[in-house]
């Protein structure tokens, strides 16, 4: 622990000093960041927290980038001493490594990057390489990435490389091409306000992994294709993407030779203080990984299929979260936002903001046909949040949520479905300049699973940059367990340090629609993040 704290402090001080002094010599822009997340584990039988062999876990990320005119270069060093509990599905212990490095040239209508890169085609349904440190996903490709605009109406992307697999690389090669065409510019239609705009695009991704087995005509190369459009007219937008993926038998899809398919259509409408969006998505057999082997979908993924549901900020709402069913699902999500203007009857002096959301996902009636709707409901969430500012000092929030959670599909076959109702109230009161208190109370009611939960959270900021927080999530119905947490944070410019102590509930931890299972843990948590530049 001392080593980790000392190393973090050394990196923090030395990198800030280095970035300032290097600025005197280099004409370009030098910048970097350091992030460390350290946990100390203690035994806690009540929540089922088991002590790991090493009572500490520490993830560290040092990233450095340099940019001068059209050139940029950088690297990322990661250390896991060892990785925090549940961070990787496979053991990655006591490693420190420069795992990402790149060199990039960017001109006005052309760029080329060699080394490790991130890229996305369309909605990411057939290809997305990205980093999510909280979840533990980094599927950067090591190879080259070219972006070029050969004409004003066309953009092309080319990728070629091998996918990062935890701290190593996969044994496959991925290549791809993406094209985007602006139809208005193609036909020389000048765009003014409210002129309808149309763009179309297409993508190809192929993954080759050597096959040495005995099955005839086994697809060593898996090809995926996508076509998309995006139409806008004034306040209205409609876009869609259709995807088809070749047979890709692997352990996680029970060696299925069936093709993957997906269709996603989204529409938005906005007017004055009103905004609405609806997204429909149906898919089947859309798991796409860099390697056929392995039993974890989160190791070296090639595409991005997030759960299209609302990500809530409430402790109780996050007990039952949906994970996209890549084997097959169909459903929709809709959001509506509206602000009652200040001065109106419902708006009051500062306005009243409403956000409503609804999502539902079901099985496919025919698992090979994405245009069918099955009878098995996987998940639904209907929620509304009303935010009201009463004065410059006081703001309140009121939220309701209704959840249906098919635990037999989403957790374990023996579990029964859960119907839950959540009520949450929150208030933020600034009692003096730079001094505030925030309180949030929640209740989740259900007759299934572990029954009812209640939670309370308070944050107290008495003098910027220091803030304190305390929270408790209590199952008062069945388990009678308190999941309490308390801590403090210190923020100065682009540096933030926080220290907390408490209990972590076992369950799915989700960020950006991607989840990882977090085991129960008890103990201290320290986080340090900093960004620096010359």
């Amino acid at each position, binding site marked *: 622990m001392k080593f980790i704290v000392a190393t973090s402090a050394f990196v923090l001080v030395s990198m800030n000093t280095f970035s300032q002094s290097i600025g005197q010599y280099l004409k370009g822009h030098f910048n970097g960041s350091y992030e460390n997340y350290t946990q100390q584990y203690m035994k806690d039988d009540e929540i089922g927290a088991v002590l790991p062999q090493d009572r500490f876990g520490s993830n560290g990320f040092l990233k450095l980038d340099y940019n001068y005119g059209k050139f940029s270069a950088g690297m990322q060093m990661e250390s896991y001493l060892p990785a925090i509990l549940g961070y990787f599905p496979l053991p990655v212990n006591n490693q420190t490594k420069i795992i990402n490095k790149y060199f990039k040239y960017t001109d006005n209508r052309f760029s080329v990057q060699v080394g490790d890169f991130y890229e996305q085609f369309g909605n990411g349904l057939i290809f997305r390489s990205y980093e999510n440190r909280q979840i533990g996903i980094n599927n950067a490709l090591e190879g080259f990435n070219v972006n070029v605009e050969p004409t004003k109406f066309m953009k092309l992307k080319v990728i070629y490389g091998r996918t990062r697999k935890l701290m190593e690389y996969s044994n496959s090669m991925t290549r791809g091409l993406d094209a985007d065409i602006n139809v208005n510019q193609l036909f020389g239609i000048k765009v003014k306000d409210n002129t309808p705009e149309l763009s179309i695009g297409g993508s190809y991704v192929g993954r080759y992994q050597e096959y040495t087995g005995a099955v005839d005509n086994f697809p060593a190369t898996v090809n995926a294709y996508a076509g998309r459009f995006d139409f806008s007219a004034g306040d209205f937008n409609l876009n869609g993407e259709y995807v088809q993926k070749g047979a890709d038998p692997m352990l996680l899809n029970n060696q299925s030779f069936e093709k993957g398919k997906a269709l996603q259509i989204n529409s938005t409408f906005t007017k004055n203080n009103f905004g609405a969006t609806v997204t429909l998505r149906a898919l089947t057999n859309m798991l796409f990984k860099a390697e056929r082997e392995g039993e974890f979908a989160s190791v070296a993924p090639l595409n991005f299929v997030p759960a299209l549901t609302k990500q809530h900020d409430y402790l109780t709402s996050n007990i039952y979260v949906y994970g996209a069913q890549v084997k097959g699902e169909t459903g929709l999500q809709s959001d509506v936002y509206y602000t009652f203007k200040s001065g109106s009857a419902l708006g009051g002096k500062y306005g009243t903001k409403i956000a409503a959301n609804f999502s539902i996902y079901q099985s496919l009636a025919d698992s090979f046909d994405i245009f069918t709707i099955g009878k098995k409901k996987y998940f639904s969430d209907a929620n509304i949040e009303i935010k009201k500012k009463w004065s410059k000092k006081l703001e309140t929030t009121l939220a309701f949520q209704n959840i249906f959670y098919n635990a037999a599909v989403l957790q374990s076959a023996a579990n029964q479905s859960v119907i839950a109702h959540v009520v949450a109230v929150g208030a933020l009161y600034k009692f003096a300049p730079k001094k505030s208190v925030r309180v949030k109370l929640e209740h989740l009611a259900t007759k299934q699973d572990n029954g009812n939960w209640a939670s309370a959270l308070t944050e107290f900021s008495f003098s910027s940059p220091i803030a304190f927080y305390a929270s408790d999530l209590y199952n008062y119905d069945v388990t009678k367990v308190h999941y309490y947490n308390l801590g403090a944070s210190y923020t100065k410019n*682009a540096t933030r340090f926080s220290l907390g102590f408490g209990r972590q509930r076992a369950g799915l931890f989700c960020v950006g629609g991607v989840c990882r299972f977090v085991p129960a843990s008890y103990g201290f948590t320290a986080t340090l993040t900093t960004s620096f530049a010359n």
Partner: protein
Amino acid sequence: MKSKFFFLVMMFNFIMYTSQAQENFPSVKLKAVSGKVYDFAEMAFSSKDTMIVVSFWATWCIPCVTELENINDELEEKQAIRPFKFIGVAIDDARTASRVKPFIKGKGWKFEVLMDNNSELKRALNITDVPHVLILKDGKIAYRHTGYIAGEEDNLFETIKGL
């Protein structure tokens, strides 16, 4: 390990001796909700007397939204005292990107919002968490702040006034 350090040294030397351009921020092109395309390097280079305040946020980040609501409430009043441009950068990915336009219109936000759907600009500027605010002045980052606690917008407006 030696080969990696050699690679880095050669890379930096190559940059130093070959590049002649003036703008030194990463050239990342992002499309705004309005349809306009911005090049961050050009935008940063153009920040001379008129400061540009860039706020990184996401629709799912409650502290970000609280901060932007409070900034939006006082934006015109503060810009009248000390002129500056205010731009939001939404890091919402494919899961929530379609929410951004109805979200900002529904809240009545008046400032431009750029879409950073695969965190290209966020990564290039080494922003680890949102919310994260940058103040660009004279082609440089004059101030940056991460996180939000109530009243942080007052600090930001005071900083802008003092720069």
